[in-house]
């Protein structure tokens, strides 16, 4: 399988802290690759570094082109969508305005977005800041789906959501994975098991495991050692 995204010797410093210490991994075209690890190991920073939202050093290749020094908006225009950890919807804008702002393609995929999240159509005039956490997550994912992206970077989409909504997000991720390659940061291993094909595990800013997600999750002692959790 060809590599859509390739990361080599990626370093990120935040202040005095050396957050990413030369991580290396590849994301193959299609499906979901889960980026896993305990809290604070650098998963979110990895996604932010791939987006160019933090200063980084190393080599990031997207469809064979080096984008390490490319500014964020140009990375996005190469077909990368981003769903940030805290949703980052524009609270003072309406749902419609949040979506309109994300439009890049001449023919934005509103049909797909409203098919996945019919509620957003009804709440178009509502300020995004007044939505529930789950609804804000819908807006955040919808913004990334509006354009025909090749790669989606999705950061903890189930964080803080009720179990029913977690299942809903997992269903959406499965559908999204049919349309684009997804690099998913996720703590909920149930969701990972359901949607992920590959898994990359970080620990203290380094990649400590990479391989098929199913194999990783089947090895309970390994999951416990790498992620510090017992897998149900």
């Amino acid at each position, binding site marked *: 399988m060809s590599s859509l995204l390739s990361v080599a010797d990626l370093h990120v410093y935040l202040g005095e802290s050396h957050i990413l210490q030369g991580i290396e991994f590849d994301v193959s075209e299609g499906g979901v690759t889960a980026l896993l690890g305990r809290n604070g190991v650098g998963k979110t920073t990895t996604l932010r570094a791939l987006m160019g*939202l933090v200063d980084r050093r190393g080599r990031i290749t997207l469809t064979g082109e080096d984008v390490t020094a490319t*500014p*964020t*908006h140009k990375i996005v225009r190469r077909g990368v969508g981003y769903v*940030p950890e805290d949703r980052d919807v*524009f609270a*003072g*804008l309406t749902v419609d*305005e949040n979506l309109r*702002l994300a439009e890049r393609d001449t023919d934005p995929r509103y049909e797909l977005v409203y098919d996945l999240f019919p509620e957003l159509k009804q709440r178009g005039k509502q300020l995004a800041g007044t939505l529930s956490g789950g609804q804000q997550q819908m807006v955040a994912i919808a913004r990334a789906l509006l354009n025909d992206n090749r790669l989606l970077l999705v950061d903890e989409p189930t964080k803080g959501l009720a179990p029913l909504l977690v299942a809903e997000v997992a269903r959406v991720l499965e559908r999204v994975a049919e349309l684009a390659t997804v690099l998913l940061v996720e703590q909920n291993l149930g969701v990972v098991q359901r949607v992920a094909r590959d898994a990359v595990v970080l620990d203290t800013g380094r990649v400590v495991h990479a391989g098929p997600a199913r194999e990783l999750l089947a090895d309970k002692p390994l999951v416990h050692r790498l992620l510090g959790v017992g897998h149900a």
Partner: protein
Amino acid sequence: MSTFVLLTITGLGLGALYFLIASGLSLIYGLMGVLNFAHGAFLTVGAYALWFTESKLPGMAVLPRFLLGALAGLVAGGVFAALVELILIRPLYKRHIEQVLVTVGLGLSTTALVVAIWGNDARTVAAPAWLGKTTTVFGAHIPNDRWILIIAAIVVLIALNAFLKRTRYGLIIRAGVENRAMVTALGIDVRRAFTLVFAIGGVAAALAGVLSGVYFSTVDPARGTSLLIFAFIVVVIGGLGSLRGTAGAAVVVGLVQQYANYYASSGLGDLSVVLLLGLVLLARPSGLSRSFA
């Protein structure tokens, strides 16, 4: 009664002048986090472009001469502001201390340059005769230039609101004020919005320069700096980044200044504005409004 009406309209006129300067300051800070101490220079450039253009058209009737001068002022202010953003601010993006140093330096050097070229003396601005006359309202003889100031500020407020609400760039600016990084993460080159906001702020400040030329009948090198101080007070009271708050604060500051000068003691107006600023900062440190227009 007539004195109160005169003070009120004059205070609103002064507030309108402050709003024209402060609106750009507020937008620039809201979107870019830049405290632009060179904003007074945009006003100075606009005012002197008005005077310079008028001085080069001596044979022309006053009204077209004034209108051409005003147009030259607005264009000069907008272009100057855009160049300042492109050449001086953009390389210093995220370096706030350096931005302050550069903008303070530019403000001072613009004044010094104007003094070096045209001297310290105030220069007379020729305005249509109607602006020098008065209109009687409830027994008060209101100078007509006050109405022009108020109308100009209202038009600018409405135009800025329409721009922010109805255009894509307005949407980008409103979103950028909330979360600039996320705007870029949607594939938008927010730097274009930066330049546009600077240009808009420059045009509004240049309009203030043109209208201050009418209000005071002259232009002088220190005008931009002296009005900028009050514009900063207005922006802080109104809430940094809030256009509606800026408009409200400009009205309050203009009125307080006029009433204090007349009813308390002449010269107390400036002090009362500073006291008002202190009270607002103590009661609501984020200003009167944090919501963007």
